[in-house]
C-alpha cells in the first residue's frame, strides 16, 4: 500500500506542506477563502526546526500499534483498515491530551476545526488525507512538495532507492551529484555559524 514517506534531508523548510494541509482541511478548500474561515483551518503536518536550522516535516506515522489509540481514554482513536490510517473521532474526543502524552513524535495538536462539533476543542492530527485518497488523489502535502521531501509510494520502493543510494555512496569512483552541492554548501555554512554561536 502506498504511504507518505518523508525524506527529511531534502526539506528546505518552505512550509508549503503546512499551507496545503490546512487548506485541504478547511470548508472552502481555497487559499483565499480558507484564511477567512472561522475556525481558522490549521495544518496537521508541522515543520519543526532542527538544531542547525534545518526544516523537518513532522507528521503522524499512523503507527501500528498506535500509542495514541491505546492511551485514548474514551476510545476516540481508531484505525481504518482499508487505508491503514489512524483517525480521531472529534465527537468522542474529550480533549484530555492523553494522546499527546503517548505520542513519541509530538504530532498532536488541540484546536477547533470545521469537522468537529462547533466550539469544541479536540485533538487533531494527520488523517492521511483519507478523503482525498478515497477520491483517488494523493495527500495534499505530497502534492505540493517541490523538493520531493514528501513522496507517496510503496515503502519497499523508497527503501530500495535508499539502499541503492547507500550502496553507491560507498562505491569507489562515484562523485556526488552537482544538484545538491548548493544546498549542502548552504547547510554547511549554517551549521558552522550555529556551532560558533554555541561555543
Amino acid at each position, binding site marked *: 500500500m502506498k504511504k507518505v514517506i518523508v525524506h527529511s534531508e531534502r526539506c528546505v523548510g518552505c512550509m508549503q506542506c503546512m499551507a496545503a494541509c490546512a487548506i485541504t482541511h478547511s470548508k472552502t478548500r481555497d487559499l483565499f477563502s480558507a484564511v477567512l474561515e472561522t475556525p481558522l483551518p490549521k495544518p496537521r503536518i508541522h515543520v519543526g*526546526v532542527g538544531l542547525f536550522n534545518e526544516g523537518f516535516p513532522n507528521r503522524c506515522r499512523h503507527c501500528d500499534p498506535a500509542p495514541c489509540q491505546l492511551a485514548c481514554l*474514551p*476510545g476516540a482513536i481508531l484505525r481504518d483498515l482499508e487505508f491503514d490510517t489512524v483517525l480521531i473521532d472529534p465527537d468522542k474526543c474529550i480533549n*484530555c*491530551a492523553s494522546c*499527546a*502524552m*503517548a505520542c513519541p513524535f*509530538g504530532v*498532536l495538536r488541540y484546536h477547533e476545526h470545521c469537522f468537529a462539533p462547533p466550539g469544541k476543542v479536540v485533538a487533531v492530527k494527520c488523517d492521511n488525507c483519507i478523503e482525498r485518497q478515497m477520491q483517488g488523489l494523493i495527500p495534499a502535502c505530497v502534492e505540493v512538495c517541490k523538493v520531493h521531501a514528501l513522496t507517496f509510494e510503496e515503502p519497499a520502493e523508497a527503501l530500495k532507492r535508499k539502499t541503492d543510494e547507500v550502496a553507491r555512496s560507498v562505491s569507489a569512483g562515484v562523485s556526488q551529484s552537482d544538484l545538491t552541492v548548493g544546498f549542502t554548501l548552504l547547510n554547511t555554512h549554517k551549521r558552522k555559524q550555529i556551532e560558533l554561536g554555541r561555543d
Partner: protein
Amino acid sequence: MEHVIIGNGIAGISAAEMIRRLDPAGAITLIGDETFQPYCRPMISMVLDGSIPHDRLPIRSADFYEQFKIKAVLGNRVSAIDIASKTVSLENEQTFPFDRLLIASGADPRPINADNLHLQNIFFMRTQQHVRGMLDALSNTRRALVLGGGLVGFKAAYGLLRRGLKVTMLISSGYPLSMQVDAKAGEMIQDELTSRGLQVQVEAHVVGFDGNERVERAYLSDGTEISCDIVVIGKGALPAHSFVPRDSIKVDLGIIVDRHQQTTTENIYAAGDVAELVDISRKCRWVNAIWPEAVSQGRIAGMNMAGRKVAYKGSLSRNVMRIFGLDVMTAGIVNPAPNADYEIMTATDRRRRTYRKLVFLHDRLIGMTLVNCVEQGGILVALLQSETAVTIPKAKMLAPDFNYRQLIR
C-alpha cells in the same frame, strides 16, 4: 486453554482483547465486581465537572463480551484463589478453574480514620457509582470539603469548583499534586485554583464528621471545624488483593510481577492498579496506578497468557490534565532526592506562560514537568521509557521550538 481474568477495568479488558486476538479458540472468563459496562475510570471526574454526560463513560459496545466470546461474570468479588487446584472462588461461592489467571482487580479507595463516616454525602471517588451519588447530592449542596491533594482529591475539587460549589481542600503536603509536580508547578496550579475560588488548607486532617443524617461539618485535628454539606475523600487507592494467598503470590503494596507481568506463581499474572513492577525512572518496584499503564500491562499480560513471551520494560508514572487556564504534564521523577548526580534544568517563559522542568541522571532523562504548551510532552515520555542517552545540548529541550527533529541525527 482456560483464561480467567479478575477485573473488568481496562487492564482486564485489554488483556482479554489481546488473548482473543492471539488465541481464537481459548475460553476467556472475565470476573468483575462492577456490573456497569466497561468504562473509562478517569473520565468520571469529567462527569463530575459536567464536561461529559454519564452515558459517554462506556468504552466498549454493549455486545462487547459477545463479540469477543468472553464469559462475563459481573457483580461479585473474588474471595480466594486455590493455587493447588487452580481455581478462583467468588464471594457467592461460584468457582472457576483456570490454566492462566490474570489478577486485574484494581484498587479500592484508601479508607480514613474518622468518626461518623456513615453520614450521607460523604463520598469516595473511584467508581461511576460514586460520581452518580455525588451528582444526585449536588442540588442540595453548596460547600464541599475535599480530603487529599493527590490526583483523586484534586480532580474532585476541580470538578466541584466547576459545578459552582465553594470548595475547601485539605492537604498534607505544601501544595496539591505533590506526587506529580514540583513546588514551582504546584504553586502555579494552586494559584490558578485559588483564583477561581478554591480554599486550600495545609497539614490539617479530619478526625470526625457531624450532622443530622447528612454531613454538616467536619472536625479537624487542630481543633477547628469546617462546615460542609458534601465531602469527598481522595486519599489515594490501595491495590485490592485481600483474596491473594500470600504464601504463593508475593505481595507488597501491590502484587509483585516480573517483566512478563507474571507473579511469583507460574501462570498467574497481574496487571493494572493492583500490580507492582519495576518503574523505569525510579529503578525499583512501584505501583503506577494510571490508565495508560493499565492498558500496556494488560496487553503484555494477555500476550504472555496466550503464549507470546513478550517482556515489558517497566512502568512509568505520568499524568496530563487541564486545569482551567493551565495544562500540566508530568512524568517520571519530578522531585528527585537531593543528590549531586541529578541535573535539574528549568525554564520559565513569562510571555508564553510556560514552565519546564527536566531532571537528568547523567545523560538520561528521568523526569519532567511541563506547564502549558504540552503538545511535545510525548517525545519526552518516549525518552523516559526508552532511557535513550541525550546527546544534544540539554538546554535545547527547554526551548519553545523543541521538537522531534532535534533528537535525531
